[in-house]
């Protein structure tokens, strides 16, 4: 690789460079201003905005950073394409909101003297996720996954205010380290089997004859353990409820949206570049290599994921824990968009994720604002909240209705596109199961609404009047949920433009 090549490559990874620079700047500022740390969140916000600018710039270009080329092919370590840019935008918008969440969160404000480390670790997570989204080399995939995991283990137990923080961080660590270890073993076998770590080379090897199907299946199952853990798909979801309940709420929201988005982007890119032999131009269906049956496995996993998530959520009294199970169920719905293996399914996933970001962040934000005042996340403590704190209760109601997937909210549009994709692919049975699951989910979402409006308030029910800042923050999430429920064409058009994944 000559020097000009290297410079072109650097121009492809400007967002990652901006995040790294912001990370270093935050660490330096943390050392310089060790008395007054108020400036650091604003530096973080500026860093994220700058990165968003560079990512928007990436909608104009596509290509490989750090390319290698042999006689027939052109491939590289990092694939910069519109699909990646879409997920990067989702990650960065949610990071932007999380900084504001942290400013509004009592838990995080109590440890303000450590906010330098807090935001540095957060940028470590962002960097890991950005690289993970565009990585098209198994080594880079593993390294970015670990960068994301290592930062989030620490953040899950960061506040140390309660015992449950440390417990959450230990559980996250044990499950995460085991699954990434298994994934690495799978990668090493796949490397031995195909002779390369690059997804594009592996693709061309898999299309040839002489592949040992059993070894391939073994290695792919091990690799899926690592990815499945990140998107909390069953049966690798056991950490999710404990970690979501124990971690500070701002971090829980971040894990449930951004970290899951990165996991999904990785899974989609991994399958799309490694196993797809041909994309039908007219119908948009993907033809996969015969040696491994992704479709059956993913159908089973997604049905298992959403059923387990929905049914376990039914008897949760802690709202954070309930939202954790609900986020598992949503991962199941989104996997359904992938099992169609078509461009239409991919559009459905992108649209769903864009809306899921707003409604899930919104639900966590309201739960956090209530916990700030009452110090509790139990559903009994929400009794009568609809009358004492009407604005927060009304917005939580809208977010929960959106998570159920009822019109006129954005959640409905997301679910609708997934179901349309399933029906178009003749997978009616799966669509019916998903629909029944949605009905089940209605019960536990409405249960909270019932507690807020129909249960009698205790005499000492707190009144929460949001200040201007939190009011604006709730509105910033509420308005998209309502507006995109009615006027969703721009997002659909954006998603349609973002299905190009570099490759075949």
């Amino acid at each position, binding site marked *: 690789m000559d020097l000009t090549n290297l410079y072109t490559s650097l121009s492809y990874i400007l967002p990652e460079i901006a995040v790294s620079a912001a990370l270093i700047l935050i660490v330096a500022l943390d050392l310089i201003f060790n008395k007054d740390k108020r400036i650091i969140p604003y530096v973080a916000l500026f860093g994220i905005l700058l990165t968003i600018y560079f990512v928007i710039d990436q909608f104009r270009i596509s290509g490989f950073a750090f390319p290698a080329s042999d006689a027939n092919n052109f491939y590289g370590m990092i694939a910069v394409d519109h699909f990646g840019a879409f997920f990067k935008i989702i990650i960065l918008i949610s990071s932007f909101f999380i900084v504001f969440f942290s400013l509004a969160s009592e838990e995080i404000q109590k440890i303000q003297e450590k906010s330098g480390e807090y935001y540095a670790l957060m940028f470590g997570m962002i960097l890991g996720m950005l690289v993970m989204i565009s990585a098209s080399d198994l080594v880079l995939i593993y*390294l970015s996954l670990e960068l994301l995991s*290592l930062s989030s283990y620490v953040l899950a137990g960061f506040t140390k205010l309660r015992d449950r923080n440390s417990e*959450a961080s*230990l559980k996250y660590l044990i499950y995460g380290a085991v699954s990434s270890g298994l994934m690495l073993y799978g990668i090493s076998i796949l490397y031995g089997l195909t002779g390369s770590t690059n997804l594009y080379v592996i693709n061309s090897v898999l299309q040839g004859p002489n592949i040992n199907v059993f070894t391939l299946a073994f290695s792919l199952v091990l690799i899926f353990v690592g990815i499945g853990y990140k998107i909390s798909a069953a049966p690798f979801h056991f950490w999710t409820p404990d970690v979501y309940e124990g971690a500070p709420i701002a971090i829980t929201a971040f894990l449930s949206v951004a970290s899951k988005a990165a996991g999904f982007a990785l899974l989609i890119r991994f399958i799309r570049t490694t196993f797809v032999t041909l994309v039908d131009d007219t119908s948009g269906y993907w033809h996969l290599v015969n040696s491994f049956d992704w479709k059956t496995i993913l159908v089973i996993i997604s049905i298992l994921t959403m059923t387990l998530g929905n049914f376990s959520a039914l008897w949760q009294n802690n709202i954070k824990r309930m939202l954790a199970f609900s986020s598992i169920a949503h991962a199941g719905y989104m996997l359904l968009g992938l099992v169609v293996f078509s461009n239409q399914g991919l559009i459905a996933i992108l649209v769903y994720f864009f809306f899921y970001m707003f409604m899930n962040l919104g639900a966590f934000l309201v739960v956090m604002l209530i916990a700030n005042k009452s110090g509790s996340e139990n559903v009994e403590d929400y009794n009568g909240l609809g009358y004492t704190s009407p604005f927060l209760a009304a917005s939580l109601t809208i977010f929960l209705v959106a998570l159920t997937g009822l019109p006129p909210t954005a959640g409905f549009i997301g679910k609708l596109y997934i179901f349309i994709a399933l029906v178009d692919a003749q997978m009616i049975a799966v669509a019916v199961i998903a629909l029944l699951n949605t009905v089940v989910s209605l019960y536990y979402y409405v249960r909270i609404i019932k507690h807020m409006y129909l249960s009698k308030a205790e005499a000492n029910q707190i009144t929460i009047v949001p200040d201007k800042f939190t009011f604006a923050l709730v509105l910033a999430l509420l308005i998209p949920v309502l507006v995109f429920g009615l006027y969703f064409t721009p997002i659909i058009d954006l998603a349609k433009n973002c299905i190009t994944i570099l490759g075949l």
Partner: protein
Amino acid sequence: MINVGLNHFLIVSGILFSLGLYAVVTRKNAVMVLMGIELILNAANINFIAFSKFGNLGLTGQVTALFVIVLAAAEAAIALAIVLNIYKTFNNVNVDEIDHLKD
């Protein structure tokens, strides 16, 4: 004198992997679980290096092993810090006793 080939290395790595998995599943002490994870990572390292040497695949495998060694060190540092924090909070590091969430 037998000729040491790829299979010998793969058998060693397979044994290491199984031992690591066994340790993760059966040990109660968090530090022992972490040692099991180290075994799994090192089993993968052996695979990488053996494949790269015997398969004539260039240096990718060996470089990957170097990356993994560095990552394992970073992971061990963070893991031990978290375990230390657990010990300060609960006065023990037994994975199955630290189960207070859920209630």
